[in-house]
C-alpha cells in the first residue's frame, strides 16, 4: 500500500456514493430494485474505508496529503497566483472518521431496507443516502476550508432532502426548510471566517494557514481578528452541530425517516461541527476557546432540561443529541481535545444505536412515537430492549461502557479548566447535565420498555424486528463497550485510541493569546527553535505537546474526583428515574404540578422557537412586506398616487382617454402630463387669443431681456 494508492482509494471511496446517487436517481423510476445497487456501493465504500483506515493507522504515522488546483488566477496584480486548491488529507482523525461514517452509513442502509419498505419513493431514498454519504466523506477527507464549506453545504442539501423526504406532510417540508435556513445562518459566519483567513493567507488549506499563523503572521496583524476568525468558523459548527442559539432545527429534523435521524442527525452530520472545530483547534485563541466552551456548556444544559419533559421518543433522543454535542463542543473549548473527539466517536455509535432502536420501536408500534402510549415493550422486543439499554448506559456514563470513558474524560477536562481558569460554572453545568442525562434517558427506557403497556391495541400488534434491522442494533451496541477503545475500563488514557491515534495538535496561536495552561514552556520552546529537524523527525505535527505540565498535572489530579463525581451523578439520575417512573415512589404528576412553570418552560423548549418566530421570522416578513410596499408605491411611482389623481382629474374633466392610465406611471409621467395639459390649454382655438399671446410674449421677452 503506497501513499498514492491510499489517496486513490480515498478518492474512490469518496466518489462511489456519488455514483450510487447518480445512477439510482436517474434510473430509480424504471427499475424498482435499484436500491440494491446503492447497497452494493455502500458495501464497497465500507470495505475500502476500512482498508484505508487500517493501513493508515498501522503503517503511516504521518499525514498523507494530496492536492490539486481546482481553479486559479495567475498573475493577479499584487498577489501573484491565487490558488483555489482542493485536496485530500488522510490523518488518524480522517481514518477514524472514515470508519465511523461508513460503518454507521452501512448499518443504516441495511436497517432501512426493512424500515422503508413499501415507500413509494423507496429508490429515491437510497439515492439520497448515497449523496449524503458522499458529502459527509468529503467533509472528512478534505484538507482545506473551502472544500469543507462546499461539502458542508452539500450535507445541508442531503439533510434537506432527507428531512423533507415525506414532503407531503407540511411539518416535514417546514422542518427541512428550517434546517437548511438555520444552518445557513451558521454558514454565513463560517464563510466570513474563511474569508478572513483567505484574505490574509491566500489559501484555504488548514496546514498552510497554521504555518503562517505560527510564523507570527496574524490576520490583519491583530490577534482580535484571529479570535474573530476562530469564532466565525465555529459559527458553522454552531449551525451544523445544533448549538445554542441555532439548535432549534435539530429536534424538528426528526420529521425525517428514523434511520436518517440515526445517521445524519445523531451520529455523523451533526458531529461534523465538532469535527470542524477539531480541525481548526490549532488556531483557536484563548478568547475563542472560552466562547466555545460557554456555548457548549449552555447548549448541553438547555437541551438536557428540555429533554426531561419531552414525550416523543425521537424528540428526547434529539435533545439528548444536542446536549451531547454541547458536551463535545464544551470539551474542545476547555482544551480537552482528544476526549472531545473520543466522545464524538463513542457517541456516534451509541446514539445511532439508540435511534435505530427507537426506529425499531416505532416500526413495531406502527409509527407511534409518543412514549406515553408505549410501555412494557421489553417482552415484545427483547433485542431492541437490550441494545437500547446498553446504549443508554453508555450515554449515562456507567462504567464499562464507551460513554463512560469519553464522558469522564470530558468532565475531568472541565474540572481542570475550572481549576486553572476559575470558570467554575462550566464543570458545574457539566456535572449537572450528567445527572439530567442519566435521568431522562432512563425515564425514556422505563416508559418505553418497562411497566405495563398503555396502548394494548398497538402493543398486541408489536413484534420484534427482522434480521436486517436487528443486526445493526447488535453491532452498534457491541461498539458501545469499552473494550474497543482501551483495555482499562476506567481510564482511557492508556488505550490505543488516545495514546496512539488521537493526539492534541500543537497550537499555532501566539503565546500571549493562549490560555496560561497551554503556553509552551521555555524548555520546550527552546527545543523547538534549536532542534527543529530532530523535533520533526521524532514527532511530526501531532506528537507535539500543547498543554503545559501544569495542565497535565491538574488533569491527572482531577481524573479520579471527576470519575467518582460523574458516576455519582449518573447513579443519582438513574435512581430518580426509577423512583419516579418505575417504582412510582414520587408521583410524576405531583412533581409536574408543583413545578408547573418550570415544567411548562421545559416542555415548550424554553419558548425559543416562539421567540424566533416572533422576532426574526415575523420581523423579516414584515420588513419585506414593507419594502415591497415602498417599492410598488413610492419608488415605482412616486406617482402611482399622482397617477391616480391624474386619472381622477381626467375622469372629472373628461378630457383624457386611457392614455393617462397606462401612461407613464411615474413622476415624470405625471409631470409631463401636467405640463402637457397646461400647454394644451393655451391652444384655445381662438386666433385672437393667439395674437394676445404673441404680444405678451414680445413684452415678456423684452422684460426678461432687459436690453436697457
Amino acid at each position, binding site marked *: 500500500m503506497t501513499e498514492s494508492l491510499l489517496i486513490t482509494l480515498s478518492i474512490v471511496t469518496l466518489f462511489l456514493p456519488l455514483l450510487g446517487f447518480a445512477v439510482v436517481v436517474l434510473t430509480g423510476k424504471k427499475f424498482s430494485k435499484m436500491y440494491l445497487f446503492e447497497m452494493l456501493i455502500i458495501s464497497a465504500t465500507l470495505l475500502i474505508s476500512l482498508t484505508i483506515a487500517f493501513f493508515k493507522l498501522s503503517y503511516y504515522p504521518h499525514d498523507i496529503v494530496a492536492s490539486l488546483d481546482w481553479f486559479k488566477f495567475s498573475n493577479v496584480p499584487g498577489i501573484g497566483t491565487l490558488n483555489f486548491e482542493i485536496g485530500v488529507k488522510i490523518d488518524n482523525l480522517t481514518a477514524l472518521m472514515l470508519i465511523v461514517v461508513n460503518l454507521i452509513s452501512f448499518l443504516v442502509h441495511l436497517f432501512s431496507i426493512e424500515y422503508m419498505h413499501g415507500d413509494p419513493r423507496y429508490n429515491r431514498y437510497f439515492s439520497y443516502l448515497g449523496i449524503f454519504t458522499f458529502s459527509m466523506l468529503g467533509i472528512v477527507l478534505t484538507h482545506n476550508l473551502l472544500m469543507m464549506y462546499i461539502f458542508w453545504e452539500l450535507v445541508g442539501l442531503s439533510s434537506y432532502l432527507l428531512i423533507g423526504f415525506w414532503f407531503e406532510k407540511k411539518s416535514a417540508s417546514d422542518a427541512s426548510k428550517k434546517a437548511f435556513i438555520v444552518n445557513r445562518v451558521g454558514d454565513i459566519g463560517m464563510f466570513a471566517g474563511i474569508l478572513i483567513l483567505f484574505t490574509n493567507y491566500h489559501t484555504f488549506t488548514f496546514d498552510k494557514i497554521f504555518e503562517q499563523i505560527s510564523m507570527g503572521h496574524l490576520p490583519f496583524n491583530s490577534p482580535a481578528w484571529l479570535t474573530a476568525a476562530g469564532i466565525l468558523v465555529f459559527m458553522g459548527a454552531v449551525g451544523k452541530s445544533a448549538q445554542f442559539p441555532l439548535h432549534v432545527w435539530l429536534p424538528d429534523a426528526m420529521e425525517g425517516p428514523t434511520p436518517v435521524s440515526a445517521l445524519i442527525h445523531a451520529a455523523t452530520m451533526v458531529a461534523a461541527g465538532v469535527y470542524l472545530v477539531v480541525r481548526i483547534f490549532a488556531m483557536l485563541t484563548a478568547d475563542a476557546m472560552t466562547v466555545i466552551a460557554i456555548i457548549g456548556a449552555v447548549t448541553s444544559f438547555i437541551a438536557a432540561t428540555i429533554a426531561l419533559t419531552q414525550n416523543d421518543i425521537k424528540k428526547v433522543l434529539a435533545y439528548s443529541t444536542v446536549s451531547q454535542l454541547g458536551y463535545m463542543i464544551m470539551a474542545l473549548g476547555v482544551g480537552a481535545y482528544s476526549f472531545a473527539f473520543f466522545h464524538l466517536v463513542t457517541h456516534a455509535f451509541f446514539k445511532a444505536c439508540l435511534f435505530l432502536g427507537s426506529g425499531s420501536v416505532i416500526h413495531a408500534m406502527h409509527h407511534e412515537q409518543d412514549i406515553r402510549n408505549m410501555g412494557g415493550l421489553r417482552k415484545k422486543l427483547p433485542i431492541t430492549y437490550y441494545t437500547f439499554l446498553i446504549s443508554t448506559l453508555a450515554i449515562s456514563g456507567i462504567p464499562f461502557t464507551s460513554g463512560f470513558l469519553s464522558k469522564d474524560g470530558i468532565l475531568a477536562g472541565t474540572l481542570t479548566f475550572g481549576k486553572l481558569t476559575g470558570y467554575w460554572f462550566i464543570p458545574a453545568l457539566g456535572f449537572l447535565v450528567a445527572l439530567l442525562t442519566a435521568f431522562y434517558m432512563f425515564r425514556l427506557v422505563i416508559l418505553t420498555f418497562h411497566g405495563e403497556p398503555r396502548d394494548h391495541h398497538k402493543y398486541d400488534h408489536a413484534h420484534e424486528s427482522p434480521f436486517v434491522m436487528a443486526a445493526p442494533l447488535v453491532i452498534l451496541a457491541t461498539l458501545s463497550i469499552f473494550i474497543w477503545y482501551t483495555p482499562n475500563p476506567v481510564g482511557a488514557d492508556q488505550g490505543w485510541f488516545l495514546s496512539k491515534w488521537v493526539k492534541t495538535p500543537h497550537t499555532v496561536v501566539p503565546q500571549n493569546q493562549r490560555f496560561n495552561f497551554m503556553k509552551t514552556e521555555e524548555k520546550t520552546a527552546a527545543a523547538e527553535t534549536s532542534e527543529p529537524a530532530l523535533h520533526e523527525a521524532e514527532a511530526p505535527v501531532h506528537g507535539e505537546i500543547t498543554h503545559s505540565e501544569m495542565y497535565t498535572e491538574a488533569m491527572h489530579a482531577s481524573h479520579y474526583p471527576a470519575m467518582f463525581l460523574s458516576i455519582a451523578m449518573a447513579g443519582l439520575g438513574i435512581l430518580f428515574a426509577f423512583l419516579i417512573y418505575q417504582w412510582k415512589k414520587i408521583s410524576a404528576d405531583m412533581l409536574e404540578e408543583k413545578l408547573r412553570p418550570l415544567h411548562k418552560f421545559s416542555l415548550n423548549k424554553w419558548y425559543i422557537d416562539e421567540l424566533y418566530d416572533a422576532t426574526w421570522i415575523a420581523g423579516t416578513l414584515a420588513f419585506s412586506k414593507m419594502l415591497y410596499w415602498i417599492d410598488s408605491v413610492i419608488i415605482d411611482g412616486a406617482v402611482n398616487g399622482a397617477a391616480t389623481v391624474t386619472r381622477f382629474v381626467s375622469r372629472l374633466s373628461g378630457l383624457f382617454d386611457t392614455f393617462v392610465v397606462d401612461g407613464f406611471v411615474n413622476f415624470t409621467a405625471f409631470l409631463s402630463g401636467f405640463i402637457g395639459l397646461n400647454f*394644451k390649454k393655451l391652444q*384655445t*382655438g*381662438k*386666433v*385672437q387669443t393667439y395674437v394676445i399671446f404673441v404680444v405678451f410674449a414680445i413684452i415678456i421677452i423684452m422684460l426678461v431681456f432687459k436690453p436697457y
Partner: protein
Amino acid sequence: MLQVGLTHFLVIGAILFSLGIYGIITRKNAVMVLMGVELILNAANINFVAFSRYGNFGLNGQIAALFVIVLAAAEAAIALAIVLNIYKTYSNVNVDEISNLKE
C-alpha cells in the same frame, strides 16, 4: 414754434401700431381684424417714409413703403376672399366662433 420733426411721425406710427394691435385683439368681425392689420402695415410705412425723409438715407425707405402698399393690397384681397369663404360656410364672420380647431 412747434417744428414737426421725426419724433412726431414716429409717435403717430407707434399710435397707429398700437391701435392696430388693439383692433386685432378686440374686434370680433374678421374684416375689422384685417383692418387692424392694415393699420400696422401703415404704421410701418409711416416709419419708413419718415426715416427716409429725415435720416438722409436715400430713397430706400420710400420705395419700401411703396412695395408694402402693394403687398398690403394683395394681402387684403386674399384675406377678404378667405373671409368670404368663411361667410359661405359659417354664415358669419365672427372670429370668436370660428374655433373648432383647438387643443
